C-alpha cells in the first residue's frame, strides 16, 4: 500500500493515526515524498551565510563585511550562522537541518546565466543540455497522473529544473489568483502539429492543476510578510491539496550582492530563515514535514575577498541547506579552505549533483544515472 493511499483511507485522520503515519513515512521512497527546492537567485554568499568565524583569514579577506565573531549563531567551535538566520536555529537544534559546505562543480562558470543553466539541467560545465534535471527524472519515472502536476514553480516565470521534456510544470504566484486566471483555460483533446500539441498540453496541465489545487486551507502558521513569505504560503497551499505534487521550487531573488551587501544580505537571509521556519510549521500541521525534503541551490557562491563596493563578486563553491523531518542534521562537506584558494575562489568539495542524487535516489528511488547522465553518490543526510 502506498502511503498516499493510506492517507486517503484515513482521510481526516485523528491524532491516533499519527503514529502509523510516521512509521510508514520513514521507510517510503517515491513521489509521496515531497521535494522543495529553494533557489537563492543571484548567487548567495556562502561565507557570510555559514560563517567560518574562527578563521583569521576570513576576517582578513573581509575587513568591512565579515560577520563579527560575537554576532554569529555558533554551530560549533569554528562555524556559525549569519545572525539573521535565527529562525533556523530551532531546526538545527532539533537536528533536522543539514548544512553542506563546499558545494560546486569542476571548471566553474562565473556567468549567472550559464551557471544557473548548469545547475538547472544538472550538466557538466562544458555540456549543454536542453531539459531540467527534474523534468528528466520525471520522464524516466513518471509522476502518477492523479497528482495535480509534476511540479509547481512559485515566484518565478522560469521553470528551471522543471523545464522541458514534457514535465507537467505549473508556474504560479498565488493559488487563488491561479484558480481565477485558469478559468480561461480549457482542456481539449485535439491533435495537431507539434506547436499546437504543446499549447494544448500546457492548457490541459493548467486546467488539471486548477481543478485539483486547493486554495483555501486554513493554516494556524503565521507566514512572514513579503514576497518570500507569500511564496511559502502558496507552497503550503499546494501541498495541502489532496492530489499534491512531487516537487515545489521556490525562488528568493536578490542575492547578487555586488554593492552594499551587509544590509541587503541580512534582509534576504531573514526572509529565507523565517520563510523556512514557516514552511516547517505549516507542513508539520499537514503531517507532511516527515515526508518533505527541502534543499537550497544557487548558481554560485561569491568570492571570498570582498570587493571595493562593500560587496562581493561572483564566486564558486558555496554552502547549501538540506532540511526536513527525516534529515540527519549536522555539518557536511568541507569547511572553506581560505588558505588554499584557486584564482581567488574556493575549491569545491561536494558536487552539486550529489545533492540531486540524494533527492533522486535516496528520497524518490529514481536511478541517478538516468537523470544525471552518470551516477553520483547521494549524501548521507537522511535518517534510515
Amino acid at each position, binding site marked *: 500500500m502506498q502511503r498516499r493511499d493510506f492517507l486517503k483511507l484515513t482521510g481526516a485522520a485523528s491524532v491516533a493515526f499519527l503514529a502509523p503515519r510516521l512509521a510508514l513515512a520513514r521507510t517510503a521512497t517515491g513521489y509521496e515524498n515531497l521535494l522543495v527546492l529553494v533557489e537563492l537567485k543571484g548567487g548567495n554568499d556562502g561565507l557570510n551565510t555559514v560563517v567560518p568565524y574562527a578563521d583569521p583569514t576570513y576576517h582578513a579577506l573581509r575587513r568591512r563585511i565579515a560577520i563579527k565573531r560575537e554576532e554569529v549563531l555558533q554551530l560549533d567551535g569554528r562555524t556559525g550562522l549569519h545572525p539573521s538566520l535565527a529562525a533556523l536555529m530551532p531546526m538545527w537544534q532539533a537536528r533536522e537541518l543539514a548544512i553542506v559546505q563546499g558545494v560546486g562543480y569542476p571548471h566553474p562558470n562565473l*556567468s549567472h*546565466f*550559464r551557471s544557473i543553466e548548469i545547475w538547472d539541467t544538472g550538466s557538466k560545465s562544458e555540456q549543454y543540455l536542453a531539459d531540467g534535471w527534474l523534468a528528466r527524472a520525471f520522464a524516466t519515472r513518471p509522476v502518477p497522473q492523479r497528482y495535480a502536476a509534476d511540479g509547481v*514553480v512559485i515566484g518565478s*516565470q522560469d*521553470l528551471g529544473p522543471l*523545464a*522541458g521534456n514534457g514535465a507537467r*510544470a*505549473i*508556474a*504560479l504566484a498565488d493559488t487563488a489568483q*491561479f484558480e481565477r*486566471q*485558469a478559468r*480561461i*483555460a*480549457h482542456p*481539449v483533446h*485535439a491533435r*495537431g*502539429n*507539434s*506547436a*499546437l500539441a*504543446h*499549447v*494544448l498540453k*500546457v*492548457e490541459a*496541465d*493548467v486546467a488539471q*492543476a486548477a481543478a485539483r489545487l486547493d486554495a483555501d486551507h486554513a493554516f494556524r502558521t503565521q507566514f512572514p510578510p513579503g514576497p518570500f513569505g507569500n511564496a511559502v504560503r502558496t507552497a503550503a497551499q499546494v501541498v495541502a491539496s489532496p492530489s499534491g505534487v512531487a516537487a515545489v521550487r521556490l525562488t528568493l531573488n536578490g542575492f547578487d550582492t555586488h554593492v552594499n551587501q551587509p544590509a541587503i544580505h541580512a534582509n534576504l537571509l531573514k526572509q529565507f530563515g523565517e520563510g523556512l521556519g514557516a514552511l516547517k510549521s505549516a507542513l508539520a500541521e499537514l503531517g507532511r514535514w516527515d515526508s518533505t525534503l527541502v534543499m537550497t541551490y544557487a548558481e554560485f557562491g561569491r568570492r571570498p575577498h570582498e570587493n571595493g563596493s562593500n560587496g562581493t563578486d561572483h564566486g564558486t563553491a558555496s554552502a547549501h541547506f538540506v532540511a526536513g523531518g527525516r534529515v540527519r542534521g549536522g555539518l557536511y562537506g568541507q569547511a572553506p579552505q581560505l588558505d588554499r584558494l584557486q584564482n581567488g575562489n574556493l575549491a569545491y568539495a561536494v558536487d552539486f549533483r550529489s545533492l540531486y542524487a540524494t533527492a533522486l535516489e535516496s528520497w524518490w528511488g529514481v536511478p541517478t544515472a538516468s537523470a544525471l547522465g552518470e551516477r553520483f553518490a547521494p549524501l548521507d543526510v537522511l535518517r534510515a
Partner: protein
Amino acid sequence: VKTALRGLFLSEAFWAQANRGALVKSPVDLVVGTVRQFDVEYGDPALFAMVTAQLGQNLFSPPNVRGWPGGETWINSSTLLARKTFIDRLFRAEEMPRMTRTAMHLQAAKDDSDANDGIERAKRAARERFVRAMGDVRLDTNRWSREFAAPPAQVEIERVVLAQAPVNPIAADLSTRELLKQLALDPAYQLK
C-alpha cells in the same frame, strides 16, 4: 530575386496545410500582432513593452547573448495564462466606459501596495502607468468588421484571425465581438 520569389510562392511547401500555424507566436508577434490585427487604439505604447516582458520577452534584454530560446519555450503555464489574460483584458476594454475602468484599476493598484521604500515605489509607479495605459486602450469590433466590403461570414473571420482552424467548437450566430474574442482565446491563436 523575382525568379526566387516566384519559385518560393509557387512551391508546394509554401501552400501546404501542414506548414501553416506550425510556429508559436513570440510575445511580440502576439501583442503587436493583436494590436494591429484588431486595430486597437492606445495611448502610451510602453504598455505593450510591459506586456511582452510579462510574457517572457523583455525588449532589448534577452536572457543572454544567445537570445531568447523561443519556439515552444515561449509557452508555459504561466505565460499561457498571461497571454490569455492580456487578450481577455483587451476585449473587456470594449465593455466598460473608460473612466470607470481607470478609476477602478488605479484603486486596485493603490490597495495592492502601501510600502514606501524605493523599490516598492518604483514598482507602484510602473503598475500605475500600466493601469492608466490599459485604461486608454480601445478595441472597437464594429469598426473592425466595417473594413470588410460586405458583412463577413463566420468562416471568413476565422480565416482572417487564425493560422489554422479553431480548436474549440465555435457556436453559430455569435456577435462579431464574441466571435473575435473566442477566436483570440482559442489555442490556435497562439500559432502563426
